[in-house]
């Protein structure tokens, strides 16, 4: 049989117009559900982004009090040869003092009487993999350094890892739960609107309409409503993200929140696809279930 898209589309739009209140309910439900889902995604991606940059920051610092320039350089060369090591920065006594002064420039009394030599030279060793901090620390100890000479946040990392993985999983679980609730809410809205038109559907069937002929305008209606609700929600989510990134860069300078941890295009795509899928799937299933009964 001919698939008359023009007819089905005009039926779908007419239905939306005639059942405006129902349509608005469905669009609003979709909007709210997708919005919350989107915010959940945002929070998860930002938390992941923060954790990622914190973990990347992990380095092992070795302080070398009383060692001469050559010794420091020798160790730098050696450390550069270890496979766990990404890069090594050498910080001389002068640089250490400068950095100290810079950090406490508001309280000059702290470094007024500071002598050269109080702040030892150090090496800052960046790791290829933050989990290798223990290994590198072990190697440094073999070089004659003690635990006091080293600063490496191994314990912190481990704790951070376990806390954040719980957090991320919790966020994902909450988001998925919410998505399920959204599906139920939206399909319920669709089911109500179909129930309100059950008499019409029965008449359509009596004059010889096939199931798919009855179903198609409803599915198109679900698609339009899903597109509208999810599209608006997706745009809102992206806008909220911009606001948040902007604000955090001023207000939360110490938290490494980055605009790049959320990809605008993929957020838009995921949310719209999810919304449309719920709209189309929900109306398809509801009409089909209803048609089975008559």
């Amino acid at each position, binding site marked *: 049989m001919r698939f*008359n898209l023009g007819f089905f589309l005009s039926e779908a739009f007419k239905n939306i117009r005639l059942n405006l209140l129902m349509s608005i309910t469905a669009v609003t439900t979709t909007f709210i559900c997708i919005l919350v889902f989107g915010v959940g995604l945002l929070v998860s991606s930002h938390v992941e982004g923060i954790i990622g940059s914190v973990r990347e920051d992990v380095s092992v610092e070795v302080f070398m009090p009383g060692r001469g320039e050559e010794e420091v350089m020798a160790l730098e060369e050696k450390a550069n040869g270890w496979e766990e090591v990404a890069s090594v920065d050498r910080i001389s006594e002068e640089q250490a003092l400068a950095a100290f002064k810079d950090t406490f420039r508001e309280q000059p009394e702290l470094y007024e009487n500071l002598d050269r030599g109080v702040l030892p030279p150090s090496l800052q060793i960046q790791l290829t993999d933050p989990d290798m901090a223990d290994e590198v620390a072990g190697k440094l100890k073999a070089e004659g350094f003690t635990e006091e000479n080293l600063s490496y946040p191994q314990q912190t990392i481990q704790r951070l890892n376990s806390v954040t993985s719980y957090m991320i999983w919790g966020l994902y679980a909450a988001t998925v739960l919410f998505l399920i609730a959204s599906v139920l809410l939206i399909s319920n809205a669709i089911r109500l609107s179909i129930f309100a038109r059950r008499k*019409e559907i029965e*008449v359509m069937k*009596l*004059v010889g309409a096939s*199931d798919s*002929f009855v179903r198609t305008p409803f599915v198109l209606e679900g698609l339009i409503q899903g597109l509208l609700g999810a599209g608006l929600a997706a745009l809102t989510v992206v806008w909220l993200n911009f606001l948040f990134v902007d604000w955090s860069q001023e207000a939360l300078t110490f938290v490494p929140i980055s605009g790049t941890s959320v990809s605008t295009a993929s957020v838009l795509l995921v949310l719209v696809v999810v919304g449309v899928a719920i709209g189309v799937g929900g109306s398809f299933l509801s009409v089909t279930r209803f048609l089975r009964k008559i």
Partner: protein
Amino acid sequence: MIRFSNVTKVYGKDTVALERLNLEIDAGEFVFLVGASGSGKSTMVRLILKEMEPSAGAIFVNGTRLSSVPRRRIPRLRRDIGCVFQDFKLLPNKTAAENVAYAMEVTGQRRRVIQTKVPQILDLVGLSGKMDKFPEMLSGGEQQRVSIARAFVSQPPILVADEPTGNLDPNTSVGIMQLLHRINRTGTTVVVATHDREMVDVMRKRVVALEEGRIVRDKVKGAYADEV
């Protein structure tokens, strides 16, 4: 054209609506189904439309045994049977013309065919001036004429009507009956379930009388009640 063979229909546990009923209606016939309320007329109509299955026996429409028609084939079956009801069953959000057009859309007719055929058929039922009116703006008789136009627009071989004049005044009823008669003269088999004694008596068509789910009388040029 339509054949009931030993058909029994039991609703629920023990409401026997039809009992071992046999009836044969030939192509081109005009048949009244008459009988008191609850005698089983609507049940026969609904069985012909395969709105439900008989408890026992078989029904044949156009040579097809209805029990062998799968669910997805029912739409095709119904396109061969125009149907008219006491409560018109028009789509409330469509105009008279759109209601008629819908019955053609479901069969996948071309737009051009629909646009020429719909005004013709509405003209035939005397509604050419009210094509763009919605059902709620039409009188009962007008609505019933729209529903007859819809039932007949694809020229199905069979037309069944369940109390088509049930909600209408006597004068309007005459018009509806004349319409059904004209449709019958084009060769369509017409089955009308009715209470309308006057109409049946005037038309002098085949009358099948039901009583508690059984045929008690079947007369070729019959009347509503037994003639003395």
